[in-house]
């Protein structure tokens, strides 16, 4: 008969081996990577992630709170995330970094109002007057509550760049004391939804992916649609980019990037009010 001590030793050794085995098994079958960056960008790829997760259940994608395009690039460079979504083209400085940026989709940017607003359309002149404070009330008499973000925000850049009038009007609007500021894309949507009489700028992609109740307005009698964007009648849109470090691109991440650029993802994007650029 083996001694009791030997038996205990064998048992403990077996347990340790089992623990390490289990660990190796787990790591082999569950890969995790982290995504952050532009809030609207993250919102735009959320349906794609959902679909990817279905197909690759062993890959765990952590979608961290948005950091903005600039913050995403910084976090990426800092290895705090593995993939960043940019809602604008990279700046020359950012382009100098050892990173890869690839467009994968674009979306319409629309002036949106509270769901109960009676208004359905606006115009450049009206927007200029509202921003400058000449018009303060909606036709139904309710107060216009401007919800603004930074002028460097991806939703605002296309409008500022559209023409000087709008650029000047936006600057005036930003300097007003009665303007409500939102710091993130998520806040922006939340404030616009919760504030009657609200007026702000959002992407169509975010409106659809977040399933908001906000009403996008026609601009100069043109509806903010992909069709009107593609035929060039609607002026405001923005493009989303995938940004990552090529040399750190893992298999799992690569498979995700490939999926985003696939036709399947393109269809998902289109279904969510975006035009795909990668496929």
């Amino acid at each position, binding site marked *: 008969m083996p001694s009791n001590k030997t038996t205990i030793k064998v048992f403990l050794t077996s347990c340790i081996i089992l623990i390490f085995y289990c660990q190796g098994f787990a790591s082999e079958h569950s890969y995790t990577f982290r995504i952050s960056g532009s809030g609207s960008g993250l919102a735009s790829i959320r349906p794609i992630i959902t679909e990817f997760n279905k197909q690759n259940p062993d890959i765990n994608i952590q979608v*961290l*709170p948005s950091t903005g395009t*600039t*913050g995403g690039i910084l976090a990426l460079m800092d290895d*705090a995330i593995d993939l960043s979504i940019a809602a604008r083209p990279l700046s020359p400085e950012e382009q100098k970094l050892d990173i890869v940026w690839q467009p994968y989709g674009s979306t319409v940017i629309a002036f949106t109002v509270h769901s109960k607003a009676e208004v359905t359309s606006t115009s450049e002149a009206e927007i200029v007057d509202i921003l400058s404070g000449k018009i303060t009330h909606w036709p139904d008499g309710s107060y216009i509550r401007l919800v603004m973000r930074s002028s460097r925000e991806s939703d605002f850049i296309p409008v500022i760049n559209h023409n000087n009038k709008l650029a000047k009007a936006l600057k005036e609007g930003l300097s007003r004391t009665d303007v409500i*500021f939102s710091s993130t894309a998520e806040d922006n949507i939340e404030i616009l939804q919760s504030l009657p009489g609200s007026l702000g700028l959002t992407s169509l992609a975010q409106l659809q992916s977040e399933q908001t109740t906000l009403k996008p307005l026609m601009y100069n009698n043109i509806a903010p649609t992909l069709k009107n964007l593609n035929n060039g009648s609607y002026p405001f849109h923005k493009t989303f980019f995938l940004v990552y470090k090529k040399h750190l691109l893992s298999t799992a991440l690569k498979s995700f990037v490939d999926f985003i650029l696939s036709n399947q993802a393109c269809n998902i994007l289109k279904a969510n009010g975006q035009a795909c650029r990668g496929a």
Partner: protein
Amino acid sequence: MEQTHRLAKSCQKLAVTASLFALFGIPILFYGYLYKAEESSLEAEVEVTAALLSQNIRRNPTLWKYDHETLFDLLRSREGEKLDDSATIFLPNGNRLIEHTLKITGPIISKRLELTAEGKTVATLQINRPLRPLLKETLLAFFFSAMFATLLFYLLKTLPLRAIQRAEEHLQKTNDFLKKVMEGTTNAILVVDLEDRILMANSRSITLCGHTLPKLKELPFKSLFSQTDYSRLELQINKLLSEKKPVSQIETSLLQPDGSKLSIICGAAPLLQGDEIINTVWTFDDVTARKIAEEEVQKLAYYDPLTELPNRTLLKDRLEQFLNNAERNKYQAAVFFLDLDRFKNINDSLGHNIGDQLLIEVSRRLQNCLRETDTVARYGGDEFVIILSEVPNKHEEYISLVARKVLEMMETPIRIQGKELYTSCSIGIAVFPLDGQDSQSLLKHADLAMYQAKEQGRKNFQFFSMDLNRKVRERMQLENNLRQALEQEQLFLHYQPILDLSNGKVSGMEVLARWQHPNKESIKPDIFIPIAEDTGLIHPLGFWILRTAFEQHLAWQRAGLIPPLLAINLSIRQLQQPDFIYQLATLLQETGFEPKYLELELTESCLMESSKNLIDKLQALKNLGISIAIDDFGTGYSSLSYLKHFPVDRLKIDRCFINDIIHSVSDCKIAQTIVAIGKNLGLKVTAEGVELEEQLNILLKYGCDNIQGHLYSKPLSPTEMADFLLNDLAPTSL
């Protein structure tokens, strides 16, 4: 002035202090206030911003530090942000994560707050705020403070001084005014402190107290009074100090430097500070003149100005006192009523001045011969009253002794203006309580006794007796009856014929008034005429006699008779009546009686008491055609001078010389002399009271012109007189 200078210095110090405070203190306080406000504001700003950042960190604890845009927006859009603020987020390693900043130069105020996540400090928020705006505002405040300080300095330095100057001017004016009031008042005003020092005195005080102002201020207040006066005054001072109320009308005297005294009335009032007396204000009113005047008034009221003896008022007062004392102490007292004999003659003949001097001398003598306890008073005219107090029980001896002493004293001739005057007096004496219980009855009884003395031949004294009193009562009764007699025609006239010795015919008839009293016998004129003179009834009585005699004479004339001259006695009282001549002339005119039939007889004493005025009146009577005769000639002074000056037509030898003319050589000589004087002066001479043949013979021998008396005819009634005249028409020889 020194106080003002000190005050000015204080004002300047205050102005400098206040200005410096305004200049530096206000900006410093202002800066402190602003700094505190900024600090609070910044603190709030840091806390709010940190809360927002912490919220963001909690939302994205892993990647928050990369979201620069959001952080920047949060910093940029922080609540209460100031455009020149600088906000920075530091990582725990001290690296700057992000900042929203402007370049701040100069001093700053800074606030830091740690940002935590899950209990760990993940970053620090620092907000800097420049202090330049604060300093600018403080500088501006300093500028305004400087202006304010300058203004304040000016105001504090000048305004109080100006106010003080104005107050001083006002005070000066008030002082001047008060000084004028003090100097203008006729009263002396002194301010005295509680330690008896004189603090203030006006000019009048200096005059009244007799000291210079510096000297007065050195003296204690009490030294202005004699010890006795101050003791009395001290009672009032104590009253003033205890009751804190003014005292007034205090009569006292100021002690003069030469030791004399000045009568004053003083008053004092307390000067209060709150409820405490700090000084007393004294007023002195010089009442010396008033005192003298009061004494003068007193003298005039109670003393005879000529003799300086007590007058009638004071006499009565003293007499009451004496009587009270006498009654209380069971003493006797005597009242002398003294009248100078024939003083009127002296007054009229020698003038009032001599008369007054005589009265003064008599007064002096009377005072000298009496005790100090006795009183001599001038009762009026030449009447004096003496009160002898504390008369011993055997009063008659003592009183008689004093009365004799007075009479003797009067015997000594009095020399006035070179003239030697002889006077005497008559004294009536009443004794308390025997002759009267009160002053009035005593004086009355003494007066009666004096008349008695007069009747006794003057120059003697008489005690009052009840018999005398009875006589006086009778006399008073007679006075009343005489008034009725005039009204009820109880009076009638008798006529006594006067014989002309040259032809044995009646040459005249003396009119003699008779009074048939209803209850008594016929009353003689020597009884009722003096009463009529004393009571003033002589005037109506005199004219009644004149009118009745005139009318009777005229009636006789109308009856075919030849009535002779009417000789009617005229009282000096009648002649003294101012309109006597006029009334007589009117009566003559009314009755149609011829003045040539009228001869008015005046007694020798009348002429002696007369004056220049009498001569004029006699002359006026003569001018009317009336003759003047001197009745009772030889009984008076028989001065030849008045025979020279008076327009006299006849002398009537008094019956007292005729009575003894047979036996008395002197009467015989007098009668002879009077007849001789009459002859020499061209005057007719009539002898009265001729009752015997021997008397007639003597008178015939001397050459007397007329006789009147029972030898020739007794007084006759009008009817008898008519018969007498009828018989007289036949020739007669003696």
